[in-house]
Every structure is written in structure tokens, then in C-alpha cells.
């Protein structure tokens, strides 16, 4: 399997569309990572809240 780019700078340039292609991937996968993080943070906070409540009312 061969890459469709001859050099790394060709890859970065994306045939002149790099300034649209890279922000596009950054936005998409930034949101993917952000949502995974937000979901785990929400679960951790809910667990902490539940633990505190149990400690207060054993």
C-alpha cells in the first residue's frame, strides 16, 4: 500500500487546500476528544456527588 503523497510537505499542503483540510480535521477530532472527556468528567462528578451523599447519610 502506497501513500498518495510523494513528500511530507505535499501531505501538509493537501494540493493547496491545507488551510481548509487541516482545520476541518482539527475541528472534527477535537470535538471527538472533547466529548469523550466531557462524558468522563460528568461521570466522575456524579460518582463523587453520590459518594458524598452516602457519607453524609450512611
Amino acid at each position: 500500500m502506497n501513500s498518495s503523497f510523494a513528500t511530507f510537505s505535499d501531505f501538509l499542503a493537501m494540493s493547496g487546500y491545507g488551510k481548509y483540510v487541516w482545520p476541518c480535521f482539527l475541528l472534527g477530532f477535537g470535538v471527538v476528544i472533547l466529548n469523550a472527556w466531557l462524558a468522563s468528567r460528568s461521570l466522575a462528578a456524579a460518582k463523587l456527588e453520590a459518594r458524598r451523599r452516602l457519607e453524609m447519610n450512611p
Partner: protein
Amino acid sequence: MNWTWFHRLASPPHVYAFAQRWTRWFGGAAALAMLIALYGGLLLAPPDYQQKDAFRMVYVHAPGAWLSLMIYTTMAVAAAVGLIWRMKVAHAAAAACAPVGAWFTVVALGTGMLWGKPMWGAYWVWDPRLTSELVLLFLYLGYMGLRAGIEDPAKADKASAVLAVVGVVNVPIIKFSVEWWNSLHQTPTVMQMGKPKMDGDMLWPLLLMFVAFALYFVAVLLTRLRAELLRRERNASWIREVVA
């Protein structure tokens, strides 16, 4: 027909345990599929004969836009189940869908704008596809705003579920907007009857990315659902066992 599985879905401890067990598997499979699809889409797929390498934006834009619709449909179905069978877990699932769906609508709109500029010459046009996708974002925001604005959880569940169900009419409007009206946006390439209009080397990373995004959504939904259940079932005895 055996309905045990449906009754189990109504049991918060059962759903919590299921979510706890399966999240990492869905998350792991999603990450692996995403990496392979990214490699295939960014490096192996040949450039398009017209759009050159700009077409690679499809690997983010199409799965993101599809997910924004899939999540809304899931949310509306969960809300309807919650309304019809008064199932709290279903309302919790609908609530867990909304923020993720809103974010992926932002992805669909944002990546679409980045693709629109070099191809159409404008970041935004008031085109049926773009406008109906923007309405989808407002539906998600309206759903979340409504939930946040009603203090009584049961009333919040009911009111927001009605909005989610009514709003589902927008999903086919988005899907078929490119066929019903004159649109700058292209008609479907992959999701159509018959053979996809795309070369195999370009197609497999895209199909794999769809699978990856779906698996990812399940993992995030299960995580958010666990958090929702912990908050809603604060006085239930099973909570003690799962957070100890």
C-alpha cells in the same frame, strides 16, 4: 415473544451495570477503527479528479453530519419510549444524547463551512441543507434549555420529550433537502440505493469512519447515561454498591 430484555432496559441498576461493562469495548473499537480510517482517508485514498485533496474533508464532514442526525433520531426514539411507557431510563438516555448531538451538529456545520469556502466560494449560504442542519442545532439547544429551565425532573422529562419527538420531523427534511429543493449541496454519494458513486479506495475509509463514529457515540452515550442514572437515582439502594 419474550419481552424480558425490554423490562430489563427499564431497570436502572441493570442498565448501569451493562454500560459499565461495555463502554471500554465500544470506546476501544471506536479508537482503533478511527485510526485505521484516518490512515486510509488521509494517506492511502487517491485524490479526487476535481476536488483534489480537498475531498478528504468528507472523512470528517459526512460521518459527523450523519451522527448529528443519528443521535437526534436516537434521542427522539428514547424520548418517545419514555413518554409512552413512562420509562425513566429512556428519559435519561434522551438527556444523555443531547449535548453529544449538539456538538456533532457543530462539527457538521463547521466542517461544511470549511469545505464550502473553496468549493462554493462562500462559508455560508442559506441553502436548504445548511439551513435545516442549523435548525437541528437550535432543536438540540432548545431541548437542553428546556430541561435546564424546569426544576421538577419529571416535568422536565415530559416537556423536553415532547419537543424531541416533534422536532424529529426535521430529520427527513435534512436528509432529503438535497433532493426536494435546488441545493448547492451535493446529493448522497454513499447512502443511496444501489452502488455508491465512489471508488473503493476512497470508500472503505469512509465506511469505516461511519462505523467508528457510531461505536464512539455508543461509548459516550453509555458514559453519560451512567452519570445521568447516578444523579436521578440518588436515593436508590443500588447506588451504594456501584460507587463504593
